């Protein structure tokens, strides 16, 4: 019992400290958000070039630290995954909690094609995107009439069904034993075999995803997504076919998650059903919400922070996940809009008064309408 009391005291102290740390960080995030939000197009472009430049030379600087390099690769992979969920959750406002299913479909399609049929990675990558996207469509058509919590439950069910298929369809998936020996991708005769190669490969995929996200967000379709997210009834009254847009968001999100899965399969050379559990979906969901629903820089940051955090907390092994959980809770209380709030990003300083609360209701509002 003494032990438990000890743990509780330590956690309470940690809570208080973290509370103030996040309060201070929160001010910082506001500053960053305002700076990005008020940036002129030209400056913004320059900043993007600088970031891209840093990302391009980064692996050469850290190549002597394989652990850091590998963590970077994983972090960027989660950026892709979080951005893919952002289409569904951040843009179209649909609470999907089975996202790891699409990630898993991508991984298994690539594994099966590359191992059994010796198909090139690039074709497997595209096939993974198509198959995952198709499953996104299959899931989307019947379920997107559901709202909020009901949709969440259905998507959890879908994720579980997929995992059970992977476990039990032993003939094809080899069940819990998984599929080992997935070859490395080849490009122009070179084999991508070291971490630096994988780094550039996933970075390419991340650029592709950011590009699509950004083009989409600033187009009529992206604004249509946001309209459906904000108020589905009003969106329909404005001539928007909300079912169509929701399915589109689902298919896009699923296809890109499938590509991330495809990358994962060749990166670790081995897939098994345990990689694609419900917890995985929740982690991706946390990245999107913590980063800032719908906000592209926010989601990127969320994915990076939530990948690095558990690694950084290894030092306090015993309390690692307790602290991780505490951070999530406190963050959501103090900054419900996420690290980089999409609305603040757009409105600059003007909507200070509205800061957090509005983004907060995005997921739940879908229930109340109709």
């Amino acid at each position, binding site marked *: 019992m003494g032990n438990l009391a000890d743990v509780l005291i330590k956690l309470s102290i940690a809570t208080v400290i973290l509370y103030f740390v996040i309060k201070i960080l929160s001010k910082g995030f506001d500053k960053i958000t305002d700076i990005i939000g008020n940036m002129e197009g030209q400056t913004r472009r320059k900043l993007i070039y600088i970031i891209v430049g840093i990302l391009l030379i980064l692996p050469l600087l850290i190549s002597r630290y394989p652990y850091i390099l590998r963590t970077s690769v994983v972090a960027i992979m989660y950026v892709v995954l979080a951005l893919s969920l952002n289409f569904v959750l951040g843009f179209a406002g649909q609470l999907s909690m089975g996202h790891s299913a699409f990630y898993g479909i991508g991984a298994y399609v690539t594994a099966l094609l590359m191992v059994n049929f010796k198909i090139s990675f690039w074709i497997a990558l595209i096939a993974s995107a198509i198959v995952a996207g198709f499953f996104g469509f299959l899931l989307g058509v019947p379920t997107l009439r559901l709202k909020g919590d009901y949709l969440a439950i259905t998507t959890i069910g879908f994720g579980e069904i997929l995992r059970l298929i992977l476990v039990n369809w032993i003939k094809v998936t080899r069940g819990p034993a998984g599929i080992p020996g997935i070859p490395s991708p080849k490009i122009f005769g070179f084999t991508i075999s070291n971490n630096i190669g994988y780094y550039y490969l996933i970075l390419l995929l991340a650029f592709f995803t950011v590009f699509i996200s950004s083009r989409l967000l600033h187009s009529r379709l992206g604004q249509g997504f946001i309209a459906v997210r904000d108020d589905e009834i009003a969106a*329909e009254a404005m*001539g928007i076919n909300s079912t169509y847009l929701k399915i589109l968001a689902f298919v896009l999100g699923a296809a890109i998650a499938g590509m991330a899965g495809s990358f994962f399969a060749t990166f670790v050379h081995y897939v098994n059903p345990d990689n694609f559990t419900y917890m995985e979906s929740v982690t991706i969901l946390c990245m999107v919400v913590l980063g800032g629903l719908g906000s592209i820089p926010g989601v990127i940051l969320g994915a990076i922070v939530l990948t690095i955090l558990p690694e950084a907390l290894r030092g306090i092994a015993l309390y690692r996940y307790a602290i991780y959980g505490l951070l999530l809770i406190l963050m959501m209380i103090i900054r419900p809009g996420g690290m980089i709030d999409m609305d603040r990003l757009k409105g600059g300083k003007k909507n200070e008064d509205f800061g957090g609360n509005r983004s907060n209701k995005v997921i739940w509002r879908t229930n109340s309408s109709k």
Partner: protein
Amino acid sequence: MKILEAIGVTKSFGGLTAVNNVDFHINEGEIVSLIGPNGAGKTTFFNLITGVYEPTSGVINFLGKEIHKLKPFDITITGIARTFQNIRLFSSMTVFENIMIGQFCRTEANLANVIFKTKKATVEQEKAREKVQRIIEFLGLESVANEIATSLPYGEQRRVEIGRALATEPKLLLLDEPAAGMNTQEKVEMQSLIRKIRDEGYTVLLIEHDMKLVMGISDRVAVLDYGNKIAEGKPNEVQRDERVISAYLGKEVG
């Protein structure tokens, strides 16, 4: 010319008949008002026209086309736009973006167009922006165009909602209690705005409780009571109609 015609429209919810066998039409270029006590079925009738509900029986024609089986977004595309009794603006969008959403159904760039930013998408987007700019000027919202719409005062939010409806390029504009919650000054402004909209060539159907507003601008008034249309005609005729008076003020016994 009849732009909208409802023939024998009935809507029942279980045992309750909210709209009962109503015949109704709107001529092009008119301002027509639909009035009636609370619960008379006005909003239900509105929802029937805009496709939120499908009538239990009866037909609704718009520009010679049956629309009562269409979905709300299809009806908007055929040319009927609406505002809501309790304002429903997109809360994360600026005024400009809100009104821009109205242009969604008049633009057609698909996924490939927007990702590759094809010429089609860019040109179309530019045209839409110009149209929205004109609507913003028409409504006098220039100074708040980049503000988050839901942060504006009530009266301006109403105008943004009307702007968003106009941006769908409707033939018929449906306004659901546009003056609700407004003060006298704002009501006067709303009245002149509705006239201005009509003068631009739109046809307007109005649901409104404020009799001064209704009688001041309507070409025709239809009165609903317990789901039945009890009177229709010029404002001064309707005002004198005994059934209307009794519906609003109650009937004298004996």
